[in-house]
């Protein structure tokens, strides 16, 4: 397929892999002392597993799968709130498809739908807005979830509803932002990461500038990467070059999509509609200051949090769950006490097992081969 196959070319892939292997050797890294590289974004994790890239990398590189899958990190309390809204009379609750399966404290939205709530899958917030126009006697709520990738379209939809004077469209924002999250990760003494593969589509919106301070204070190089196999391999080459030359900067591999300054229109929409929350509770990572986005008071009439009475309870992660350690790279998914036993894709306990992009779900589905072959004694 054009514009995709070019970025999956095995010959170029092999060349890049040879280069990576050479670089790792020059850096003197091996299985005992691997370079730990975190790919922040769930989309990257997905590509790594789908194409079996981890099994092709030299032993001196260890990929750590970060917290960048918004579905995975959606906290239990937010799911409970979403269910509280969806079960109100006269509500049509609209959501992206993969959010349906995320477990709340009692049930998921999928179970809630089966019990009779009017929950509909949409492909963009504008679908929800169209539904609100068509059903003036119903309250249509859009479940806003995701980083700066999805937040601008939610913001623009809210502005559109505001302009049209719609009184039956509401946004339930659980949107999150990447920089405070990376900040919190980097501040954590548990974190054992040498460098980052940065999220391409988030950066398409926010640009490179917000990463600079982080990179400087924590001395961790960051390469913003695309999502095809060759993108990831090239990003690794770029990251390794930084280690080799002793540089530590933010670089952009995904130039065909990401402009250094980001997308101004999207940034303005975010600025206009949202304010940072003092704190946002993450599944697996706990509470992170300034990492959530709430709707500004000017748009309170379109804010589902204001329109509906919500439990807004903070529900702690189950004790046995070690998602936090997995997300910080302190342990591998299969080293978690409940991986594959109590916690499976059918009955996920923690963030990392919830979505297929979660590190644990990805290992469970795709990675068993690698773990059974390389680590027979551990599992």
């Amino acid at each position, binding site marked *: 397929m054009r514009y*995709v196959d070019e970025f999956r070319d095995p010959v170029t*892939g092999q060349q890049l892999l040879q280069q990576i292997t050479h670089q790792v050797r020059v850096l003197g890294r091996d299985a005992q002392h691997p370079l730990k590289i975190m790919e922040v974004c769930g989309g990257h994790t997905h590509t790594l597993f789908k194409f079996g890239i981890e099994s092709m990398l030299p032993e001196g590189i260890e990929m750590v799968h970060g917290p960048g899958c918004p579905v995975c990190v959606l906290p239990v309390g937010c799911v409970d709130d979403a269910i509280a809204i969806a079960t109100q009379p006269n509500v049509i609750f609209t959501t992206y*498809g993969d959010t349906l399966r995320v477990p709340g404290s009692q049930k998921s939205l999928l179970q809630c739908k089966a019990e009779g709530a009017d929950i509909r*899958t949409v492909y963009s917030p504008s679908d929800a807005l169209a539904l609100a126009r068509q059903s003036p006697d119903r309250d249509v709520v859009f479940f806003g979830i995701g980083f700066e990738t999805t937040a601008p379209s939610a913001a623009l939809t809210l502005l559109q509803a505001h302009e049209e004077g719609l009184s039956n469209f509401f946004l339930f924002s659980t949107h999150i932002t990447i920089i405070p999250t990376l900040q919190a990760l980097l501040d954590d003494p548990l974190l054992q990461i040498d460098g980052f593969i940065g999220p391409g589509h988030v950066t398409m919106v926010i640009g490179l500038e917000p990463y600079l301070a982080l990179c400087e204070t924590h001395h961790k190089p960051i390469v913003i990467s695309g999502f095809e196999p060759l993108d990831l391999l090239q990003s690794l080459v770029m990251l390794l070059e930084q280690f080799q030359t002793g540089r530590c900067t933010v670089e952009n591999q995904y130039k065909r999509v990401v402009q250094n300054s980001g997308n101004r229109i999207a940034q303005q929409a975010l600025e206009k509609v949202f304010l940072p929350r003092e704190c946002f509770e993450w599944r697996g990572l706990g509470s992170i200051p300034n990492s959530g986005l709430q709707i500004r008071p000017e748009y309170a009439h379109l804010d589902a949090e204001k329109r509906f009475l919500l439990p807004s309870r903070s529900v702690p992660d189950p004790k046995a769950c070690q998602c936090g350690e997995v997300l910080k790279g302190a342990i591998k998914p299969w080293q978690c006490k409940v991986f594959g036993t109590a916690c499976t894709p059918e009955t996920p306990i923690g963030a990392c097992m919830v979505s297929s992009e979660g590190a644990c779900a990805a290992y469970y589905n795709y*990675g068993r081969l690698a773990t059974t072959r390389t680590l027979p004694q551990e599992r």
Partner: protein
Amino acid sequence: MTDTKPTRQPVPDSTEARYPSPQLWDRIEGARRRAGRVRDTVITQAHGGGGKAMRDLIDDVIRSAFDNPNLQIQEDQARFSLAEMALHGDRLAFTTDGYVVSPLFFPGGDIGKLAVNGTINDLAVSGARPLYLSCSLILEEGLPMDTLREILASMGQAARQAGVQIVTGDTKVVPRGAADKIFISTAGIGVIPASQQIAAHQLQPNDAILINGYLGDHGAAILIARGELQLETTIESDCAPLHGLIAALLDAKITPRAMRDLTRGGLAATLNEIAQASNLHIAIDATKIPIRPEVQGFCEILGFDPIHLANEGKLALAVPAEQAQTALAVMRAHPLGQHAAIIGSCRPEPKGIVTLQNGFGGERILAMLVGEQLPRIC
């Protein structure tokens, strides 16, 4: 006014006037017996009431669409000659399936065609020759009569094309909202030749794995036909009966060890079932799997994988390695196997799993999905 004489009523003076003529009785009897014409434009609860309206529906709308000698018997059951069936083989194959697809009509087919071909395929992958089908209809009150006629005509046509007969059935009408327009359940009977012992656990190491063409057409066509994605494509469902293709393979002395049609859950689900039943390793080369560029593009947009998408005219089979090239040639010579491919092989270890070698050189486990594929957020 006073002198008005009471007028005398004409007194019937013949039997003809007091009793209707025998001709009239004949006329009435003829009308009662004659198959009624259904003039209603929608299904009402009367059509499921067991009375004249239901009989008319069965005669005028259903029986006429499936027209075959077995249906003319008009008993509560279809009857077959055992001796005649025994000519085809030594075992019966019997299967049932329900069809609830939405929308009812989609590019490449409709619920009726699906209900016939789906059950034919479930029979055929045992090596059986499909012979007879049943058709049970659950109709929602308010279903347009023309929609029903169109679906039944499609079933009749699919059955005639496949050389099977729909020989018995049932019709129920449920109140509005208790079903989604129409649900169809078909059961089927076929006869398995004595020479065929096709089963998933028969798989042997080194067997070749083949499929008969492009994956995911049906799943993609249905999702697009629902209209929620606002995508325009030329993708059509692959809905087709596979017994002709299978007969061609068996005629060429191919002895499939395992054979399954690829429906919900796609190739991934079927291969996992076979790997688990045989406790062997199925290794697939992803670059050999035929996928239409349109379907691949559709999947890229939504974050789907065509390997998990539903098919309605595709099968996977395992044959001894030495038969692989012949089987491939036979399939490619058949209209339903033009894009057939050998996609992998069977190995002893690691037991019970399916792996996928991708074009990029990496290998991963191909797992079954937990539920259905959900579009990914980013």
